């Protein structure tokens, strides 16, 4: 597959969304709603469940499965209240030293009047800053599209993993082609230039692990569950200050 084919694959209908990941890898998930400021953003699904018997706070950007569901979740385009909900849930996890798992799948944070009025920039900026100094282990997995700042808002983690046909990019290839070359037709070229595929990102040390998808079979989810549990187990006894320092160094290297 070339880069553009992977871009299309990362957006493909039928690809598992965050809610499906939550169903497959957690047990007893209880969803917690709202940012306690303005609203409950359905583009972000957050709550607590167990993974291999250990409680984990899971926060996912949900695109929705079918058309009605996509509309309900605003196609995974998060409003400021979504980032504020995520932040609130992360702080709650921190208080009880419970690990945080973020599942990232968004074409980008929502662009609109309400989003600007309610401080989209401030919400994303705070989310990055709070997550990067969170005193509890955090792992982010890009499961589809990792669209720019909207994805980074939930990806300032100890490690960032990505599934093999997911992407993570500073701008969509369409946006890049139209801004840089004033030509939306050059989207294939832009896809390649941006180095946004899982393998490219791994080569750039932007992600720690590329996850083999295995057709999103039960085996894939079983493996993922084991890997996530093992990751949090490895971080369990790291003192919070050391965890924060290691995260600082992770992002300092870029």
């Amino acid at each position, binding site marked *: 597959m070339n880069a553009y084919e992977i871009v299309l694959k990362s957006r493909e209908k039928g690809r598992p969304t965050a809610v499906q990941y939550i169903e497959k890898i957690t047990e007893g998930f209880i969803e917690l709603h709202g940012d306690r400021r303005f609203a409950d953003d359905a583009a972000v699904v957050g709550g607590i469940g167990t993974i291999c018997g250990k409680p984990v706070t899971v926060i996912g950007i949900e695109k929705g499965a079918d058309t009605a569901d996509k509309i309900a979740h605003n196609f995974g385009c998060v409003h400021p209240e979504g980032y504020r909900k995520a932040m609130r849930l992360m702080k709650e996890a921190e208080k009880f030293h419970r690990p945080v798992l973020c599942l990232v799948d968004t074409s980008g*944070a929502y*662009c*609109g*009047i309400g*989003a*600007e*009025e*309610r*401080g*989209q*920039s*401030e919400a*994303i*900026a*705070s989310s*990055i*800053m709070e997550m*990067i*100094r969170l005193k509890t282990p955090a792992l982010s997995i890009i499961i589809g599209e990792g669209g*720019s*700042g909207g994805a*980074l*808002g939930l*990806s*300032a983690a100890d490690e960032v993993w990505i599934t093999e046909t997911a992407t*993570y*990019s*500073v*701008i969509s290839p369409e*946006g*890049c082609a139209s*801004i*840089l070359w004033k030509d939306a037709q050059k989207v294939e070229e832009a896809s390649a*230039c*941006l*180095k*946004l595929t899982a393998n490219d*990102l791994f080569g*750039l040390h*932007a992600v720690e692990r590329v996850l083999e998808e295995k057709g999103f079979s039960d085996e894939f989810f079983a493996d993922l569950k084991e890997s996530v549990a093992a990751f949090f187990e490895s971080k369990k006894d790291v003192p919070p200050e050391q965890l924060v320092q290691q*995260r*600082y160094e992770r*992002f*300092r290297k*870029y």
Partner: protein
Amino acid sequence: MAEKCEKCGKIILSDEMKEHFGVCPKCGHYKKLSARERISMCAENFGELFADVAGENVLGFPGYDEKIAALRAKTGEKDGVVCGEGEIGGVRCAIFSMDYRFMMGSMGHTVGEKITKTFEYATEHRLPVVGFVLSGGARMQEGIISLMQMAKTSAAVAKHGEAGLLYISVLTDPTTGGVSASFAFEADIIMAEKGALIGFAGPRVIEQTIRQKLPEGFQRAEFLQKKGFADLIVERREMKEKLSLLLRYHNTTEAAQ
């Protein structure tokens, strides 16, 4: 020497323009300032730091090397930010100032690295940071590396803040995208220059997304203050004075007495 106001088109003597801090005496339009013009307008005894930091074309992005080389020759700057240490109203502080002439202050590795170093330097020397922000956002030619600058700078801002030190960001026209969604909005005090366009998405992108015209004044400094996201709006001619006062109110070292 004379120049033409980019808004009203009137010819203004350059000296007169300078006397008015780059604000058109005829129509009041705020001309964009280079990074160094901005610093000299607000600070004294400025000494530049990290001038040697210059990144590379990490992704091998086509045409990017040529673009950078041309801009370096044209502006005399290595990239879109000037950093250093100086005094504002007699208070020593670390300063960064972004330059519109360099791809509208977009943030790639060099810009992110210099700003991060500025915060680390300020943390180490226990200095406040004053940042003059001007940026269209992340620099797409550096792909994921430019996105990572948002996280890197944010981490450095957080550490500086945890050390009990003051950070004032001055948002100027324009402040959007990845810069807006990182260190621009992580300050203790967020100052917005009068009339500046400040937002996450640019107005054209929003209009294309929602397929309607945006109201007059949308995403301008005044709108931001009204919505609760800017502490104060400052006119250019009073900026130095406002910064001086705020720095003094926060200053606890004897050097300021």
